[in-house]
Every structure is written in structure tokens, then in C-alpha cells.
């Protein structure tokens, strides 16, 4: 079954319609910048200075108060959205795999953004930036987005979000929304990477994906654990007590992601691979995780 089949595209179209009708003004493309300029919506007045365009003088105020004031309008502009998709081997776990869900989520977000005339770029990463798709605009580009995502394969040695963010922020580009879709299993910690994006005035949003078997592993007795990301082995005896401990540690990790995002006002969406991507997108819309 192809990752982006006809059913997938139908759902994308549906999500796009929903985003326009119900959540108009609260999702990606309807965001207004703080930049004032040649828009149509009135913002405030300022003193006239020589050289200003007379067309924007408020003649009514001049007639009433004999004071030259210039009308200022809020300028609307398209948003730059950077979608980070984790391609580390740890994402290739479970059935359906986290990697598949991540690509579907990225595709959906890209489609909605492109439909609303935002600019979208996609960055595939693991221990470094593996591939990226340059900024694209317009709904017509969705096919190239899908093709790009389809060609991605899980690879790399170990997730290193800090290194990826470092490479990304040093590029000359406009700031914008940075959506990181990942399981965040970064040995050096996911916080450093997100901090780097945040400090460089990007607006990070985290979509954390996990598999139910990661939350509740069905392992008991003497086993050899095999890390599919690092290919490391470990012979252990898993007892009921160990399992309880594991669940606690895993919950703590989940909570730490939530707490971090809340601390810095970042959007955070946690999901299991059991949740279909369309439901996840709808949930993100309802929660208003991406607001102007």
C-alpha cells in the first residue's frame, strides 16, 4: 500500500477545507505579521513627515483637528514554515512505523500551508541534515513535496537535534515556524536543538511520535535488547519490576517534553502511532497549536 495513495490525498483535501471553514484565522496561512505596510486593514496613525505618501493622510482628522496624521495599515504577508522530519532509524519502529506517520503528518501540514499560499521547506535529519527541500509556494508544489517525502529512508547513526539545528540556523533565510516531527530520542537531549531554534527567533513546534510498544513493552525474562538505531546489544533480565521502572522512566521523558514546551510557550503535540494522521491534524487544529 503506497504511503501517499488516493485515500491519503482525499484526506488532505478534506483537511484543507476544514482548515479554511472552521479554523479560519487560526492556522498557518492566516497569520498576520507585526510589520505594518500596504495592507487594507487599519492599524493606527502616526505623525506626517515630509516625504510620506499623501494618499495615506487622514483628511478627516486634518479637517476636524487641523493636524496632519498618516494612516497606517497592517500588512499581510506569507509565512515561512520549516518542517523537520526525523529520519533516524529509531523512527523505523512499530507497525505502522513512526516514520510513516511522521511523513504523513509533514505532508498534511505542507499541503495545508501550500493551499493557503504559505512557503514551505522540509528538512530531513537524523544525526545531521540528510536532505532538504527548498522553500516552495503554491498548491501545485504538493506533488514534489510528496515525492520528496516518499524518497526518504531511515538512516543515520544517532539522532543529534542540536547539530541539525546548528546547521539550519546558520543559513540565510527568513524566520518562521519550525515544526519538528520526531520521537526526540536524542542521547544528548532534545532541548539543545530546540533552544537553538528558539534563540534564533524561529518558532518551534514539536510533534512527538511514539509507538505503543515503546510505552508498554511486552518483554519479560532473559532477553537480548537490540537498539535498531545504534545497533547496540544488551543482555538483560527483564522482570515485572524492571517493566514498572521502564514505564516510569518513559512517562518521565514524555512529561519532560511537555514541560519544556510549556515553559517556553512552544506548541507540543504528542501522539501514538495508533492515531491516524488526519485525526492528529484535526486535533492540532482544535488545540490551536499554531496561532497567529
Amino acid at each position: 500500500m503506497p504511503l501517499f495513495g488516493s485515500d491519503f490525498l482525499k484526506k488532505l483535501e478534506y483537511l484543507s477545507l476544514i482548515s479554511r471553514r472552521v479554523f479560519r484565522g487560526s492556522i498557518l496561512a492566516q497569520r498576520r505579521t507585526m510589520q505594518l505596510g500596504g495592507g487594507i486593514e487599519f492599524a493606527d496613525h502616526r505623525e506626517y513627515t515630509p516625504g510620506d505618501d499623501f494618499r495615506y493622510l487622514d483628511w478627516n482628522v486634518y479637517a476636524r483637528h487641523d493636524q496632519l496624521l498618516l494612516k497606517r495599515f497592517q500588512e499581510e504577508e506569507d509565512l515561512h514554515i520549516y518542517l523537520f522530519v526525523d529520519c533516524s532509524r529509531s523512527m523505523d519502529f512499530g507497525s505502522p512505523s513512526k516514520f510513516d506517520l511522521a511523513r504523513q503528518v509533514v505532508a498534511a501540514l505542507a499541503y495545508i500551508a501550500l493551499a493557503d499560499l504559505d512557503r514551505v521547506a522540509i528538512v530531513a535529519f537524523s544525526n545531521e541534515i540528510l536532505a532538504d527541500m527548498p522553500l516552495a509556494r503554491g498548491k501545485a508544489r504538493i506533488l514534489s513535496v510528496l515525492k520528496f517525502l516518499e524518497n526518504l529512508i531511515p538512516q543515520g547513526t544517532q539522532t543529534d537535534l542540536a547539530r541539525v539545528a546548528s546547521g539550519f540556523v546558520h543559513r540565510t533565510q527568513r524566520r518562521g515556524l519550525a515544526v519538528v516531527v520526531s520521537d526526540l530520542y536524542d542521547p544528548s537531549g532534545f532541548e539543545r536543538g530546540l533552544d537553538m531554534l528558539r534563540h534564533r527567533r524561529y518558532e518551534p513546534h514539536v510533534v512527538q511520535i511514539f509507538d505503543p510498544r515503546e510505552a508498554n513493552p511486552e518483554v519479560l525474562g532473559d532477553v537480548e535488547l537490540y537498539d535498531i538505531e545504534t545497533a547496540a546489544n544488551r543482555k538483560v533480565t527483564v522482570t515485572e519490576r524492571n517493566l514498572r521502572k521502564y514505564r516510569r522512566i518513559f512517562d518521565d521523558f514524555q512529561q519532560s517534553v511537555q514541560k519544556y514546551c510549556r515553559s517556553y510557550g512552544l506548541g507540543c503535540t504528542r501522539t501514538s502511532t495508533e492515531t491516524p494522521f488526519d485525526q492528529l491534524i484535526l486535533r492540532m487544529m482544535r488545540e490551536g497549536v499554531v496561532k497567529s
Partner: protein
Amino acid sequence: MIFYILKIRLRRVPVSTILFWQQIFEEKQPRSIWQRLRHLLSLLVQLAFLCLLVLALAEPFFKWEILEARRLVLVVDNSASMRATDVAPSRFDRARQAGERFIDALRFRDEMAIVAAGTQPQVVCGLTGQRRTLHEALDGVSASDGPTRVAEAVTLARRLISKHSNGRVIVLTDGCFEGAEKLAANDDVELVAVGARTNNVGLTRFQVRRSLLDPIGYEILAEVFNASDEPVECRLEIELDGDVVDVVPLTLAKGEIWNRVFEKTSAEGGQMTAQLDHDDALAADDLAWALLPRREMQRVTLVSEDNLFLEKVFEANPLVKLTVVKEPPQKPAPGAITVFHRKLPATLPAGPVWVIDPSGSCDLWQLGDKLLNPIVTQQDKDSPLMAHVRLDNVILPEAREITFKGQPKLLASAVEGEPLYAVIERPGGNVLVLTVNLDQGDLPLRTAFPIMATNALAWFAGNRGELRESLATGAITEVALASSLMLYSPDGRPRPLPANVATATIGPLELCGVWRIAPATVPGRTPDEADEAKPPAALEIACNLANRGESDLRPSEELVTNEEATAVLAGFAVRPIWFYLLALALIIVTTEWYLYQRRWIS
């Protein structure tokens, strides 16, 4: 030890990241007092296991084990009454189940033997302590249709015990035999009764024989016993080879023994069955078999010149196919009896020959003068030719003196020993000679004459008309063997008979039905082919239960209540001590392994 070896082969489990697992296993375990105790506990468990193992290998035992060792003999009644189905599935199966319990309850160092007590007491399994052997031996005992021989079996069992201090005989029976109460009263006998008091109606006698007077007549003797505490109505159906011969409705009072002789006529022979149309617990006595010999047609060639008496005496016999000729035939018909009246050839032909009032000499005798008014003074009463024949009061005006060339056997002779009726045995066929002139005197008018003719015809026919008595189960009989033959039981199982002997003793016959003695079927054929190619039986023997004691399924009330010999079932320490020690060691090591796997101990 195996468990520990098995632990080495680990199951490989892929995980997306090992980060969280590392946090668990790299946490430093606090060395608490409990953990130190866990080590100690593990050590103690292993020491206990080792001690138990060593102790088990030493094979310890208690003194009382040897002193109290028992010697038991299980007497299993497998007589016909044990086939009764008043208790499900049958009395015999119940007895066998009880026997299984006794075997299971055997203690270490106990010994047991099994004796079957039906038809003929037989030691099925000698004294042994091996449960498996005993179980197999008990499974090998099957119910028979034979009579009960519990008393003899107990005598045999006592011989096996041979005054052992803890010897005991356990009798598994339904108690339907004489002396059951007396037997149960013995100290060394434990009588375990199976079954209940049950009403039954059974055929206790069924015989058939050919009539001595009527060549095609036969007589049936049937006896029915109502072994019930209430009157019974039933029906007796008698069939000959599937054709109904008679149906008799019966109304029997309680305990009544009904019997009757039926007289029937038929030249046909075959298997005769009597069936009681009555639903009761014992099927073996509801059906009985008997064998009716077939009467074969005999061809008789009478060489005579119009002797009406002779013609009529042969014509009167329905089994005779008579041909009358005036001159002696050149060559007699094969298998036919040739009767020469007066006229005879110089050399008698081969085959059975009866010469009456010979007119001349031949190769076997020299004819002498006339013998006037001979009086029969000597008569061979034992000969079948003279059965029911008395010639001493018959007027015989004339006979012929004959001087035999050989040594004849005289059946009747005159005062001075002149032969009047004699038998000459020769390789080519026997010859009967009657020297009496039939035209004079009243012999042809006497009843003795047709009887003589009938006897002569039967004698020439051989022994095919003899009575073949139905035997009771458990009977032993002797049979003449012509060649190497097999004995086939009613259920088709073959048994070889001794070869190169004239007579063989067969029995005891333990199954009701028709036993066959026939040549062996060709091995390797399928059962259907074997049935088609079944060789004709040389001899058949009917065997019936015919035992009032077995048909009576009503043991005394006292025995019915004695259900179980609880004292013998005492099952403490059924296995040796080393077995318990080993079992305990195994439990300990398994528990230790389980706890170790769960990391409850180290």
C-alpha cells in the same frame, strides 16, 4: 541444571532505543539486608536440594516397610454372569475398574498376582510389584461365557500366598455362585461384590437330535429358567438356518423352570437357534445354538423280481431314491447302495451292498443247503444295525446256509451258530447279508423289517445322522482329526489344533456360539476374501451357556452391600521413600529456578 543451560539462549528483542533500558540497569542496586538474605536463601535452597539428592540415592527405607509388605492375589471373576449390564458398562468392567484401584493402591514392596476365575482358573500374572505389568495383565483378562470357578480360583490363590503373614485374596465377583457367603466369611478373603440383584430369564438347555424312527424327523429340547422374583411373560423363537420353526409364548412364574420337547420333521439340517424375546441384563443366555444333522438322499438300486415288500420298505423311506432292476447292473451307480434279492453276480460289485436271500455263491461266500425253521438265538444288541430290532419271536420258515470265506460279523444267528444276518467288511465297501427267505414267514410283515432297513441305510450312510450334542460353556470334548485343522471360535479367532494325531481334546470352550473345526484360511487375505474363501467346516460344535447358576443374577443381599474392601485400599506410602525425596528435590530446584528467573533470589 538444564534450566540454567537453557538460560544462555536469549531471545533477541529489537527496541527503538536502548536509552531508557540503560537507565534501569545502570542504576546502582542498593545492597540491602534483604538482598544479603536472598543470597543466603538461594544457598540454603541449593544445599537442601543437594542433601535430598544424596539421601535419595542412598535409598533409605523403614523397617515396617518390609514387615508390613503384603502379598495380594486378585481373583477376577470373568464368568458369564459378569457380562450382565445391570451396572454400567457391565459387571466385569466394574470389577476391572475396582481391580485397577487395588493395583494403584499397592505399596512399595507389596506384591500382587491376578487369577481369572471364569471357565477355568488361570494365573494371568504371577506375583509382582510392577504396577504396569499388573495393569497390562488385568487389561488382558476378558469376560467369557464360561461358568464361575471362584472356589477353585481362591484355592489357587491361597497356594500363591503360601501362608504369607500379610497374604490376602481379593475376589472381584458378582457373588452369583454357590458358597459366596461362606467364602466371604473367611479371614484371608476379601470379597468385593459388583452388580445388584437383577431379574433374568435365560435358556438353560437347548438340544436337537434326529428321530430314531422317523428318517426325517427330529426333536428339540428347550428349557427356560425364570431367575426372577416376579412372573415373566416372554416368547421363545426357534429357527433353523433363519427359517422360523416355532414360536412359543411363555408365561413363567417366579423361579419356574419350563421345558418342552418339540417334534418336527425336515430332511434339511443346519444351525438351529433359540432366542428368548425378553429384555434383560444378560444377553448370553437369551440365545442358544444347536446343530441338526442334514439327512442326505440315498440312492438304492434294488435287483429283484417283483418283491413288493422290498420295494415298499425302501419307497416308504423319504430319503431313498429307489431304482428297481431285474438283472444285476454291469457297473453300480457311484455312491448308490445295491440291494440284491436272490439274484447276484459271481463277484459282488464295489460299494455298499446288501444281499437278501442269496440264490447262489459269490466271491465272499459259498451257499449251502436250505435251513428250515431257524430260530434266532443270538443277536448283537450293541450293533446300530440291530437297534430296536428283535428277531427272536419272528417266524422264519426258511433261510440259507452260508459258509463265508472270510470272518464276518454276525448280527443274528440260529441255534448252532448258522449266520442269518451278517456284516462283511471289505475295502471296497461293506456287505450286509440276510439269508432269510422273505416270501415265507412273517418278517416282512413285522415292524422289525422296516427298522432293519432304516438301520441298514443309516449304517451305510456312515455317522452323518448321529446326534451332535450342544455343549455347555466350559466343557471339554474330544474330536477326531483327519488332517491338520484349526479351531475357530464363534468370534472368528483361530486356534491351531495338534497335527498328526487321531483325536484332539478341545476346550474348555469359553464362548457361546458355534465353534468350527476347519482347515486354516490362507494368511494375507483380507477378511472379506477370507470369508468368501472360508473352507467348509469339518466339524461344528454348538456351545451354549446352559447354566442355571450363571443365569441367576441374584446374589445375596449381604454381598450386594459389600462394595469395597477399604482395608486393602490403604494407600499410604505407595512409593519408596527415595521417590518422595527426589520429588521434593525436584520441587525445590524448580522453585529455585522460578524465583531466580524472577530475580527474587540471586
